[in-house]
């Protein structure tokens, strides 16, 4: 068994495929992500937009509207959500919107109701969140004004001495942002974890190659090994251990690079991270070994399968993350059956949860999958014989 | 044998045969890989209708020479002419008249036998109808009719080699270059391949045949060149080659014990070059002579020594090679 481990390690190290997938690929993508993520953060926090305001008679007549607009557009304001340009008439504002100078423009109707006109382009580009924020601000203005008017109807003296307005606009109720998780939720981290999972999946080719070489149908090399005086399952285990060792080291280096160069948070639990990498690489090698026993399977198919599974870990951007989350909410069994999802979840659990049970559950799932794959692979190998025609 | 068209190129004075006649003419070919000289000032000339054998151990430069002729390799020095014209990588008209059966099986794994032959024939013959005939003939020629729809993975080694040949000769080339076509082939397929080559030659093709199986070369080839270290060490017909060396037949006699005196008497016979005993066998190497066997047996009879089996082998090309280079043909260089 040691012999097949040794030959497996040597051939994998010299054949660059594993190094490319389990090491170079995550490193390259990490560098790309590093460049990208100053922008990606914006995908989750950006609410800003450019607003055109039509400053006509109706606008001036709307009590308190201008103050509200000032409050949300002031460059120093803590409530800054938009940059404002003023226009004299609706036609000018509309032209500016069509030209793309502003994302939306605000008009006020004759009865004092604010109306927001938003461009198709801005929704296509930035989504509907910035506009929702603007409309929420305007709603609050509208409701506050209505409330003040009601108060003024029954107790006009409060309006006169300004207490009415003050009562509603003093900001008496504040929210405080708490953090439930050990570390603050970070949109970047999830991408890196998904990347590590994908690298692990791609590295399954190592397991596949090692197992395939043992098959008698793989050619003279396989036939020679089949003649050895060692039972096939032992050779398989040896080869698998070799593949696992190689992939584990590569992924560990990649994770170290992520942590050191890109500053990806992994929580403070180093042994946990090592354990997660070990479990996921074992699972990947076992999956690869199983694929290796399927005769018509080619190594390239593993990358196809990994790409598809990575969709459900949220690797491919915001839309993919939403898809992954919605599947996890709606059909958790389906999500949990995805080994790459389990890998991502291991790291996730380490970063966010106080208790280790989620992490251990995912590790257990990965180990269970690995054992299942190995068992099936061994069974299949026993049945394969040299069949030429 | 149909006469080949005269291509009327330059005549080299002092050549062994008229340059106009030669199908292949190589002058002073040199190919180096860094310090290693793979082909060392090789010259040869092949007449139409010949089966020309290139014999030599592994690494002697046979395949390198072939690849230079086919313009698959660039070479450092020398002149190569085919059908009287200089051969260049872009000599497409010349290439049309050549068929190649390379050393490694060169077929597409994804295509069936028929598709493979068709695909390679199409590189030479454009007309579809004609090509279909040629493909049918080629498949029949190599005896693969029953395997037309098979993919290479399903064929045994011998059948693969036959497919390899079919792909090379389907377009009825005038010059066929075969580079070790019978490596790792079962005896049945080998016999079929060899007789196929004889038929092709009978139909008018010139064949260059490289091998390190001397029996095949002796059987097929009208002229043979023995190569070693990139050089020609001997060339001529088989008989001429054997005549170059001193060795005649080799006699082996099964004797019991043999005393030194009798051995000396054997050694002192005319035409006996060496005589040794080797574990109960007397091995005698003779120069050419008509009565060697009778003489040796006579000595044994005179000495009253009983003998068992008697074997007499004529000289082989291996003997030629051994004598010229001091090594056996089958030794690794």
């Amino acid at each position, binding site marked *: 068994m040691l012999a097949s481990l040794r030959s497996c390690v040597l051939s994998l190290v010299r054949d660059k*495929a594993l190094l490319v997938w389990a090491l*170079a*690929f995550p490193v390259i993508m990490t560098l*790309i992500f590093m*460049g990208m993520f100053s*922008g*990606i953060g914006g995908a*989750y*926090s950006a*609410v800003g937009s450019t607003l055109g305001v039509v400053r006509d008679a109706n606008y001036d007549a709307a009590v308190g509207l201008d103050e509200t607009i000032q409050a949300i557009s002031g460059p120093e304001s803590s409530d800054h959500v938009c940059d404002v340009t003023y226009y004299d008439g609706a036609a000018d504002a509309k032209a500016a919107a069509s030209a793309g100078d502003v994302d939306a423009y605000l008009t006020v109707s004759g009865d004092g109701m*604010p*109306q927001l006109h938003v461009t*198709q*382009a801005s*929704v*296509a*580009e*930035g989504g*509907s969140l910035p*506009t929702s*924020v603007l409309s929420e601000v305007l709603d609050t203005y509208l*409701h506050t004004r*209505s409330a003040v008017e*009601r*108060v003024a109807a029954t107790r006009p003296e409060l309006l006169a001495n300004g*207490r009415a307005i003050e009562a*509603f606009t003093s*900001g*008496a109720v*504040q*929210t405080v942002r*708490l*953090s*439930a998780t050990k570390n603050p*939720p970070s949109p970047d981290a999830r991408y890196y974890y998904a990347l590590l999972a994908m690298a692990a999946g791609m590295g399954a080719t190592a397991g596949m190659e090692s197992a395939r070489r043992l098959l008698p149908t793989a050619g003279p090399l396989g036939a020679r090994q089949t003649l050895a005086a060692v039972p096939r399952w032992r050779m398989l285990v040896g080869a698998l251990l070799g593949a696992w060792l190689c992939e584990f080291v590569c992924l560990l280096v990649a994770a170290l690079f992520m942590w050191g160069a890109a500053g990806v948070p992994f929580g403070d639990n180093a042994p946990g991270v090592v354990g997660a990498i070990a479990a996921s690489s074992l699972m990947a090698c076992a999956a690869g070994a199983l694929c290796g026993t399927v005769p018509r399977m080619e*190594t*390239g*198919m593993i*990358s196809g399968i990994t*790409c598809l599974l990575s969709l459900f870990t949220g690797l*491919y*951007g915001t839309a993919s993350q939403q898809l992954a989350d919605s599947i996890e909410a709606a059909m958790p069994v389906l999500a949990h059956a995805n080994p790459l999802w389990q890998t991502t979840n291991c790291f996730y659990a380490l970063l966010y*949860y106080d208790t280790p049970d*989620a992490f251990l559950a995912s590790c257990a799932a990965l180990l269970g999958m690995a054992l299942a794959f190995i068992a099936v692979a061994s069974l299949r190998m026993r049945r394969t014989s040299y069949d030429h025609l | 044998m149909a006469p080949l068209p005269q291509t009327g190129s330059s005549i080299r004075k002092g050549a062994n045969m008229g340059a106009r006649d030669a199908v292949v003419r190589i002058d002073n070919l040199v190919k180096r890989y860094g310090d290693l000289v793979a082909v060392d000032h090789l010259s040869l000339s092949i007449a139409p209708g010949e089966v020309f054998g290139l014999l030599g151990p592994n690494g002697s430069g046979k395949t390198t020479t072939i*690849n230079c002729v086919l313009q*698959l390799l*660039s070479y450092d020095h020398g002149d190569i002419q085919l059908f009287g014209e200089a051969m260049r*990588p872009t000599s497409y*008209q010349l290439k049309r008249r050549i068929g190649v059966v*390379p050393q*490694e099986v*060169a077929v*597409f794994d*994804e*295509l069936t036998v028929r*598709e493979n032959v*068709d695909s*390679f024939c199409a*590189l030479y013959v454009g007309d579809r109808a004609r090509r279909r005939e040629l493909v049918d003939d080629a498949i029949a020629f190599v005896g693969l009719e029953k395997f037309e729809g098979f993919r290479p993975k399903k064929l045994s080694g011998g059948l693969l080699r036959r497919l390899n040949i079919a*792909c090379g000769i389907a377009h009825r080339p005038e010059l066929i270059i075969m580079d070790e076509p019978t490596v790792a082939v079962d005896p049945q397929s080998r016999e079929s391949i060899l007789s196929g080559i004889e038929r092709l030659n009978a139909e008018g093709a010139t064949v260059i045949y490289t091998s390190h199986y001397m029996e095949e070369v002796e059987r097929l080839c009208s002229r043979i060149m023995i190569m070693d270290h990139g050089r020609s060490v001997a060339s001529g017909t088989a008989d001429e080659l054997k005549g170059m060396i001193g060795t005649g037949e080799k006699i082996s006699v099964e004797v019991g014990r043999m005393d030194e005196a009798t051995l000396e008497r054997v050694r002192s016979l005319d035409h006996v070059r060496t005589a040794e005993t080797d574990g109960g066998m007397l091995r005698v190497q003779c120069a050419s002579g008509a009565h060697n066997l009778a003489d040796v047996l006579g000595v044994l009879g005179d000495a009253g020594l009983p003998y068992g089996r008697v074997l007499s082998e004529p000289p082989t090309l291996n003997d030629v090679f051994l004598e010229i280079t001091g090594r056996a043909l089958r030794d690794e260089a």
Partner: protein
Amino acid sequence: MTTFRTYLRIFLSHRVYIAIYLVMLSLVGVFIGLSASPAATGEYQETSANVAVIDRDGSELSSALARRVLAGNNQVDVADERRAIQDSVARDRVSYLLVIPRGWGEGLMDAARQGGKAPELETYVSYYSGMGRLLDIEVTGYADGLYGMAATLGGGAAEVVSATDDAWEGSTQVSMVEQVASPLPASLVTAAEFASYPIFSSAMVCIAVLMSSVERRPVRDRRLASPESARTRNLALLGACATIGLVTWAWTFGLEVLVLGRSSLADSPVQLALVGAALLAYALVAASVGFLAGQLGVSESAANALANILGMVMSFLGGAWTGLSLLPDQLVAVAHFTPAYWVTRVVEGAAGMGRVTAKNVMPLVGDIGICALFGIAILLVGLVLGRSRGRSELA
């Protein structure tokens, strides 16, 4: 069988592998499109978040607040335990979780009467912090209304709530700036933006499979020894690569239109045509990269790695995964050198096109042209390399 047909035959003989790869990757694009907002982008859809409220107070005021914040959003139930809260927030199952502390209602009424600050509300947000800001505005707005009513009109909790609710009727009217052109569905746009990665990867992988068979040394030597000129050989290879590019484009784009955007065939033909043309140009770029790789003699596994890594890098740099507006400026400068960037520009431009005029369409056509130029340049490099490989050295 001509060389071109030979190549196609070889390519087709790997159809299982190709089907798996091509189909899987194209499905990725379709799924991503499906997960995007299903709105016909002609209407404005207010963002609705997943919101949970943990009401520890249970008073009239807190119930009113909870009701208000959950209306118009997706209500998610979360147990009042640390672990449940962690779970929901860490995975963005809940974008905004409001915890109303015990005694908040009382505290608010008292503060309103005395003119002081009300007790704070606790919130947890997921990494979608933008949602958090939106909901903060909603929550504090209504809570301020309750406070203001309590401070001015007074009365009991029920009266305060009812007065506030009355005032809180009505909302800002939001409409889209009038679109002359009927826009493409958002799902199709998202999928089309993402399509650059599957198209590139699958085209390259298919070509890699072809090359590995065709460039095996013995077969290559046999072909080189034949009277087929280098030009014919290269043209046949080029034809095969272009065909493969065409097939991957037709499948990927066709699937996306079929599943996500059938209506746009009739409604927005010009925008659809622009998107399709951009993706076609990119597919041909992929084909020329594959051709170049073939001419360089890249092995099959190396081509596979190149297909995925290069495909991902180019798509990422081209803003295909997050949209161009989110690319940092320095990266945008680099991205100009990737064909995927120009494709994304066309897709976003077509998606946001207000009116189909020559003025709007021509710049996008120009972008398609730039993308195609990348392909032509790579192709020329490949052709030049192919010429000089008529003869080669054995290793």
